[in-house]
């Protein structure tokens, strides 16, 4: 017993103070919100588009490059291929949005997720109970969602919890491209959640199918199957990105909150792979 207490003192209290305090430091090479500078593209747009493993890049009607955060796996390949500074991954971890269209980036600002409205918000009160369903997820998204329950992040502080049964849940947090083999189980789990209910798609696979888009074995994510209330991009999303999205959804972070300082990702590698 004494040993346990001694060790407890040594391990100290280390829960992050975010969002009251500053967010935890992200590594210099962290690849967050990409920024596109159209003026730097003199040539080579097609090569950059072809370099994307998930087809996240395309041209819009005016010929400008657009990036679909719902498909992006944040590998950084496009930034390496593009002219210097044309595509930069920044340290901005705030990526969650409320509608699918908001994930398609051109040059403007990302429209961050806003609080749930109406009856649903009132009914939730100060808590959000989620049932997690992995439907073909590789265990990356699952593991970094689970991390929020550890004492480092302690998501329970905000009344957010992963629960064991859909009957106890206010909604689903779906990960993975939704394999054909999980379609029925996902549908049944959704039906078992009492209404009104929400759906959160976490990770490129759940939003669009990601790398597994267009496969006969998958359903291109949950977006076309269920009404999604929150999209959290990433492969997998950083725990901070997911937490930020969840807190915005329940109104614990809003547009008035101070902005984190944003820097370009410290990626030195410009060599071709």
């Amino acid at each position, binding site marked *: 017993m004494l040993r346990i207490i001694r060790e407890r003192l040594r391990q100290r209290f280390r829960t992050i103070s975010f969002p009251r305090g500053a967010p935890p430091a992200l590594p210099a090479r962290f690849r967050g919100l990409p920024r596109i500078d159209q003026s730097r593209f003199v040539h080579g747009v097609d090569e950059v588009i072809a370099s994307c493993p998930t087809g996240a890049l395309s041209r819009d009607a005016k010929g400008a490059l657009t990036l679909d955060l719902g498909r992006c796996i*944040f590998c950084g390949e496009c930034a390496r291929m593009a002219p210097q500074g044309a595509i930069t991954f920044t340290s901005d971890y705030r990526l969650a949005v409320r509608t699918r269209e908001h994930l398609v980036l051109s040059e403007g600002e990302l429209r961050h997720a806003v609080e749930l409205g109406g009856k649903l918000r009132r009914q939730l009160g100060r808590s959000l109970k989620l049932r997690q369903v992995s439907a073909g997820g590789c265990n990356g998204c699952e593991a970094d969602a689970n991390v929020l*329950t550890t004492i480092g992040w302690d998501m329970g502080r905000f009344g957010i919890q992963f629960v064991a049964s*859909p009957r106890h849940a206010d909604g689903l947090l779906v990960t993975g491209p939704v394999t*054909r083999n999980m379609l029925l189980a996902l549908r049944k789990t959704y039906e078992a959640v009492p209404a009104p209910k929400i759906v959160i798609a976490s990770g490129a696979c759940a939003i669009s199918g990601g*790398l597994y888009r267009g496969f006969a074995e998958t359903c291109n994510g949950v977006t076309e199957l269920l009404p999604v209330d929150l999209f959290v991009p990433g492969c997998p999303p950083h*725990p901070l990105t997911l937490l930020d999205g969840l807190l915005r959804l329940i109104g614990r972070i809003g547009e008035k909150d101070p902005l984190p300082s944003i820097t370009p990702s410290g990626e030195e590698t410009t060599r*071709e792979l």
Partner: protein
Amino acid sequence: MAPTNAALLANGAAVPVGHIPVFPWKTFRSWLLSSVSDGAEIASFFARPEKGFTLTAVCADPGTGNLQAASTRVEDAWDSLTPECEAVHLFEREMAEQYNMTPNGHPWLKPVRFQPPMDGSRPGRATPEIGDTRFFSIEGDEVHEVAVGPVHAGVIEPGHFRFQCNGETVLHLEISLGYQHRGVERALIGGPDVRSVHFAETLAGDTTIGHATAYCEAIEALASIAVPPRAQAIRAIALELERLANHIGDLGALAGDVGFLPTSSWCGRIRGDILSMTALVCGSRFGRGLVRPGGVAYDLDEMAIGELHERLSSVARDAGGACGLLWSAPSVLARFEGTGALAAATARRLGMTGPAARACAIERDVRRDFPTGFWRFSQLAVSSGRTGDVFARAYVRWLEAQRSFAFLEEQIAALPRGETLASARKPARNALAVSLVEGWRGMICHCAVTGAQGAFTRYKIVDPSFRNWMGLAMAMRGEPISDFPLCNKSFNLSYCGHDL
């Protein structure tokens, strides 16, 4: 004259497909059976649609460090080897499912993943509905059945478990998977292309470095690319960080499963601290984007090395303090010891791998037995246990974690100088490459076969979980069903790694 000798290969090497002998069935059968009885592991055993169907097996002999490969040809059926060699049971089921063939006399011929047939499969088989199979059942007045999943209570991947119980006691557990099947092997055919390495990185997300390294070593073997020593060292550092994060995280989860909350709480956080060290190297907590054909995409500068070193010593101290409590707490030991014991003979027969096998005194480790890359320069002691129970599986992982800490301590400070990425080249045509990597769950095996254009005509992946799921089922026999979560966590196998 028919060939009598299998082709000799090395880990991370390629041979022309033509050099792999095609044995008549009888010769193939006796070669495979005698290799296994002489102590070799079946690293891979797969079919491809070529001249009927070509079945190729790769045997890995830890005694000599050699790999041997041989093939045979079948039309649509063969006499199952499973009755004589249980280690092939799942490989045979997999081939039967992927190409609609029949291993005659297979005692447990059920779907593996409920997947659609592979290209080139024999026609005539519809894809079965997931979970639609004849489950093993036991009848009796006191016998009842418990079905769990695919969706489980925790934040975890899906799978279906069926227990046949007599009261509390589990007589038999049947594990039926396939819910995570995404079709990765099918998607890799025709590669390598811009997606291939990303498929490898997401085969099992918690083993990103392990699978990406296996993929890259296969490509490097096919294209004769020499990886610079500094890149090999960074890969080895990332592989050990991956092992540490998973081992420490799982020790915490095991503590949680027996209600020992101090270790459970701290290890969850420490695991995150280790993932952040990987993110320091490459920006991703899981090591996405780091390992690339030819080396690594990110170098470490002096500042990063200093930072890694500093964090390593504080994480090692925290982990030592948190995990050390487990081995002296009577409430933990009482639950760990004797729970889910697996006999060494069973583990050996099933061809199990990794910490679960080493916990049964099967002292095998790819890093020592078939070293490639950095492991050729760094000797590693293999950690093992004797009792094959939850305690042994947990303790082996703690021993391995300590050795990983020591390895990192030594290597981070002494990185070789030089380049980190060799230039890309085209893979050889009509060649076969085998690469083995000791992932944190055990031996990962990738086999790449190229055709006349140098593109993959078959890419076979064997995740360690594929070899170990049956071990979990066996470990549960005679155990109380309430011990399943603890037992399951002590193996912590991958669903998507199995389902592909």
